[in-house]
Every structure is written in C-alpha cells, then in structure tokens.
C-alpha cells in the first residue's frame, strides 16, 4: 500500500483561548459530566459507563433512561486512549487523509444531507427601458435529492481539487428508497462516483453489515478495508442538551466493533439547546463530545475517533441555526483548541450560511467561516462545499465557487517560504534589477509563477461592468462534469449487486455506463 496522503494545508493555528481559558473550559465540562451528568437513553451504554466507575440510576420518564454521573478520572483516562492519528482511506490511495491531532493540517470536504438540490441555469432577459439591451440572469430550480443527483454530486466533488473528502451532501428520496435500503444506496452512489474518502451517517444500524461488506469488496477484503478505510461514519450520539440517543448509541457500538473510524459529533444550538454565551456553549458541547468519545474507548480501546464539534447559534428571530455569524467562529475555534489539547483530530465546520442562492450573501457568509476555521487548524472541515439555506440545500455550482474560494484561502495561509537560501536569491535579484535600465521585477516573477507559487486572479472574473461569476462557474462546472468518472471495476459492481439486497438497478446502469 502506498503511504501517500493528500496534501491539505498546513497552517499556523490561530488560537483565541489562552492556556488558562482552555483549562477552565475543560474543567467546566468535567464538572457538567459530574453534575448534573448526562441522560442516557441506551441501556448498554449506561451499563458500560457504570462498569467503569460512573454512577448511574434509572430516571423516571416515559422512555427507559439512566442518569450517568462521570468521575473526572474515567473521562480523562478514556479520552487519553483515543488515537492522536487517524487515517481515512480512499479508493485511490493517493487520496488518503492523515489526521494528526498534533499537526494543524487542514482538509476540506462536503457535508450535510440536504433534501434539496438547487439547479442553476442562465437565462436572457430584455430590458424594459431599452428593448435592445439583454442581460443574462441565473434562474434557480429546486429538485428533490435522489440517487442520480447524489451520484452526480460525488462525480463533481471528485473533480474539485480542494475537496479532500466526500460526505453525502444530499438526501436520497427516490420512491424506491426505504429506511432499510437507504444506507446501501447512499454509500454505493458515493463510492462508485468518487475515489476520495467517503463518510456518512447510518440510517439504520442493521445496514452496517451490508455497507461494510460493500466497502470490503471495493477495498480488496476485510483486512484491506481496515488498513485503508475507504469509508467512515458520523454518529450524532448526543441530542443536546446532554442526552445520549438510544439508537445512535447502538450505531456507535456497531461501528466501533467493526473497527472503522467514527466521528462523535455534537451540534448544540446556542440559545436553545445550549447556553448562547461562549463559555457555556463550549463547556457543554465539549462535555457531550468527551462522553461520546469515552463511550467509544470503553467499547474498544484505541478505536479511531474524531472530535466532532458543530456548535451553532440560534437566530433570535426564528430560532433556526445561524451559521455565518461571529459566535459561530468563536464556538468552533474554541472546540478546535480543546480537541488539540486532548490530542484527538478535530472534525469541524465551515462554509455554511443563511443565503438561499449563490451570490454576495453566500460569498460573505462562507468566506467568513472558511477563512477563520482554516486558520484554526482543525484537521477535518466539513460542510465546506455547496451548502445553501443553512444545511438545507446543496447547489453544485456553489460547490465550484467554494472550491475556488478554498483554494485562495489555502494559498493565503500556507507556510511562509522564507529561509536563508531564498533570502540570498532575493538579494541577488534586487541587485540585478537595480543595475538594469528599467528596474522592473516582472521577468523575475517567472520561476515562481510557473511553479504555481503565484496565485492567479479569481477564476470567474468578468472584464466589463458586469458580474459573470455564475455564468463562468457554470461553464467551468460543465467542463469538470464532462470528465470521466472514477468508476469501479465492472466485476466489483456485479459482486456488490450480487451480495447487497436493496440497491437500485439505476445505480448499476450508471456505474457501468461511465466505464
């Protein structure tokens, strides 16, 4: 197996908390876990916590529920067993990701499971005032997510150079999709259309076996899959505030026992399911994630796990999530710092906003978080491509625009190329130019320019008094989509269909058509 990984971007982390503040938040989280503790709706998890020293008792409520109070030592010991380095595999081994909690190398990917796909088309409109003047304007159409569109999203994302991993951005809602076959179809549509890492949540724990078998066939066997985990999972085991969900806890058990990487994700909303104040929000989400990670390590020591922090703030006019706001960055950067302190790779968030369509609002909201969260040095940033209307819509042309934006941010934050030999070269150049007749540095740009060291202008710029960003991005997207998809071997497809009940026949046809 080639031990190569995607490059990502290594940054010098921006930290807003000082060492004392990190310590206070950590202690506050432990204090929450000790009192009031958590409400655990899964019996197996509650008993496992008890077996390792937690104090539990059954709560009186409609559903079986145990209150769990954790001694600080239990949390600290379990969290210390989580590995600092997690490898996420890929069909193409060059697309593997090495997430090292002690190295602020940032990777970007898609995310959410939006119900809506937004299609964009340009249309000509005639001016009412001047009949001979026409303008091209984008028109947007909402489509329900389905397996064909998810396949298309995966193919496009495979071609986006700054997208490092693929989390299904679209919910599949074909009439033939049921809760029982949702997972196998979702994973197959993704895996058969991208050679990058594929990650998703599980709809039903019963589907895990079929999904894992599919991944084994693609990776080349059971052992090969564990060495090159082409898939991983997300489990939102906590329903904030502080409640472990029964069926998600069962998924955590199953995934950890299957030996595959898992994100323990929590997404409280400041102002409704968590305090809106930074200190309260971060102390609570950190408590939830630590308890979730503790569960994974009690199931199996050393289980590969990511610290999944998705703290958001409530809009105070309608209590929906508000992503493109200052508090979002504050909460999230604090979580990145805490994950670094625990030496667990951080699954973080950027690139979401309230904008419903691509445009200036979307650009503002996305840049605001894309830039700030990249600076934080989180290892794994999801939601970064194509999302609109918070996380409710996926728009492919927006993913193309996000790709351009992230490329610029990566260039901006890359390590400085300043060292003795570079400085010496520069001094020579200064002398050379100053002794020339025109004292112009332009021709000395060439080496850096052709080595890709000099950034290019915005890819979708217009030359005149007009905005052609969307038109140009659509043209560029068409070129990307015209490229060949990284299809699976036909015999692998046949074997997967033979062994996996519930896969839609249409996916088989499209998987083979592109070969």
């Amino acid at each position, binding site marked *: 197996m080639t031990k190569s990984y995607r490059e990502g971007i290594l940054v010098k982390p921006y930290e807003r908390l000082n060492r004392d503040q990190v310590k206070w938040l950590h202690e506050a989280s432990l204090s929450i876990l000790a009192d009031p503790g958590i409400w655990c709706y899964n019996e197996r998890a509650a008993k496992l916590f008890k077996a390792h020293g937690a104090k539990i008792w059954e709560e009186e409520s409609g559903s079986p529920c145990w209150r769990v109070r954790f001694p600080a030592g239990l949390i600290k010991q379990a969290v210390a067993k989580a590995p600092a380095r997690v490898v996420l595999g890929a069909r193409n081994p060059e697309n593997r990701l090495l997430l090292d909690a002690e190295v602020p190398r940032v990777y970007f990917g898609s995310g959410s499971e939006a119900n809506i796909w937004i299609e964009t088309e340009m249309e000509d409109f005639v001016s009412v005032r001047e009949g001979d003047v026409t303008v091209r304007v984008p028109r947007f159409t909402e489509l329900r997510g389905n397996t064909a569109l998810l396949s298309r999203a995966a193919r496009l994302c495979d071609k986006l150079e700054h997208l490092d991993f693929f989390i299904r951005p679209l919910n599949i809602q074909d009439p033939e999709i049921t809760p029982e076959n949702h997972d196998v179809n979702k994973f197959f549509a993704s895996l058969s259309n991208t050679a990058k890492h594929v990650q998703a949540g599980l709809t039903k724990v019963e589907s895990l076996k079929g999904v894992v078998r599919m991944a084994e066939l693609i990776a080349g066997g059971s052992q090969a899959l564990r060495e090159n985990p082409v898939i991983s999972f997300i489990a939102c085991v906590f329903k904030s505030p502080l409640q472990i969900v029964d069926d998600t806890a069962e998924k955590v058990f199953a995934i950890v026992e299957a030996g595959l990487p898992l994100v323990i994700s929590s997404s409280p909303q400041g102002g409704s399911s968590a305090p809106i104040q930074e200190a309260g929000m971060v102390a609570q989400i950190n408590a939830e994630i630590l308890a979730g990670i503790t569960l994974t390590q009690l199931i199996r020591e050393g289980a590969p796990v990511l610290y999944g922090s998705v703290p958001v703030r409530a809009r105070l006019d309608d209590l929906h999530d508000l992503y493109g706001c200052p508090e979002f960055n504050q909460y999230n950067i604090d979580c990145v710092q805490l994950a670094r302190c625990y030496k667990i790779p951080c699954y973080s968030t950027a690139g979401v906003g309230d904008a419903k369509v691509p445009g200036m609002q979307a650009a503002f909201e996305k840049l605001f978080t894309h830039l700030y969260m990249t600076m934080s040095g989180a290892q794994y940033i999801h939601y970064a491509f194509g999302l609109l209307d918070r996380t409710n819509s996926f728009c492919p042309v927006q993913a193309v625009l996000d790709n351009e934006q992230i490329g610029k941010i990566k260039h901006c934050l890359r390590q400085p190329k300043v060292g003795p030999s570079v400085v010496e070269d520069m001094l020579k150049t200064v002398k050379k130019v100053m002794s020339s*007749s*025109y*004292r*112009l540095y*332009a*021709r*000395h*740009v*060439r*080496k850096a*320019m*052709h080595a890709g060291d000099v950034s290019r202008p915005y890819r979708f710029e217009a030359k005149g008094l007009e905005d052609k960003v969307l038109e140009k991005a659509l043209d560029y997207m068409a070129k990307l989509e015209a490229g060949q998809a990284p299809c699976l071997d036909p015999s692998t497809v046949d074997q997967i269909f033979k062994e996996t009940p519930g896969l839609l026949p249409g996916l088989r046809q499209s998987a083979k058509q592109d070969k």
Partner: protein
Amino acid sequence: MQKQEVLEKIAFNVIQGRVEAEDEGFDEGLEGRPAVTELTEEALTQGVHPKSIVLEGLTKAMDVVGEKFEEEEYLIPDMLASAECVGAAMDILIPHLLKAGVESKGKFIISTVAGDLHDIGKNIVAIMLKGGGYEVIDLGADVPTERIVEAVRQHQAAFLGLSALLTTTMRVMGEVIEKLKEEGLRNNVKVLIGGAPTSSEFAKEIGADSYCKNAFEAIDVLKTMAA
C-alpha cells in the same frame, strides 16, 4: 555550431526568456548555458548576417511568444522576458545593421509627463517596443514638456509615447501636443498615449493620434501607422 543551429538556439532562448547565460528559462536546467546575448555574439563571429539574426532568430521567436500569450500559456512576465532578450540582442546588432544599411522600424520617444513619477507601465511599453524592433529613446518619468518636445526635434522621431497614471497629470499630455504644434513639429510625429485614467475619448479630446490600452495594443497600433 552551424548557422542554422545558432539561429535556432537564439530563437529557443528568446522563447525561454533568457538574456544571459546565468538566467533561468521557462524550462528547468538551462542556467549556465549560453543565452541570447552570448549566442548573438557567436552568430556575428560566425559571419551570420545581422538581418538573418533579426528575422530568423528574434522575430520568428517573438511570433511564437505572441501565440503562447494568446493561448494564455505565457503571461506578461514571459512576454517581457522575451522582449528583453530581443532588446539585448538589438543593442548588439544595431551597429551591424546600420553598417549593412538596414534601418530600424523607427525612433520612438517615450516619457511619463511632468508631475508624474509612475513609470512601470511606460517601462513595460518601452521594453516591448524595443523587442519589437523600434529604436526606443526613453526620457524617464516626470519629464518637463519642453524636454519632450526638444527630444522630438533633436531625434526627428516618428513616434512619441506619453504616459500618465494620475488624473491630475493626464492633462499635461494635451499641453505637450499643443507645444508640438507651437513648435511646428506636430505633423512630423505620431502621438500615442496610455495610462490608467486615459481613454480613446481623452485621446481625441487632446488631439493625440491614438490611445493604447497596453503594450500589445501599442505594437498593433504602430503596425497600422507608417513611420
């Protein structure tokens, strides 16, 4: 080295943008190998006619560079590097060309007008024109009107290029043209103007012959003007 080989090497190095042996090129690993200056000297030593060097080495190469620029493979720094190569070769070749009775495409006086210290754009135009075979007389930046007019008279220049970056100094271009008229020189020289605040409309307003958006447009405009 055969005549044809040295001419091809000159053309290759113009395309690579290498003036001297120590220069890097577009491709890797060229540093230290003879470049346009050394190869031009060698060609002359071998007795290659200077006009052949211009036509088969320099001009042919600049055509290729122009195509690469059109195709966006080359950007401005590449064009400038190639133009500088041609300029350096022309410095060596001009005395030989004059001896052989071959004239340049014409004298081009270029200057940033009084009150304006900006000279990057003017320098780029000068490099490109020199690379294009014009005899460029660069007066520099912040040049008084009288000195510009005197240079036109002294050199009997066919072309005058005026540059300004500031809205407050662009009007001086009009003063230069008025002064040329007063001195009876206006009909002998074509005046081209350029710079960020200027435009075709402004060129017409002050009585210039042409507005050039950039160095490439200047070369195209000059091709349409008889020297």
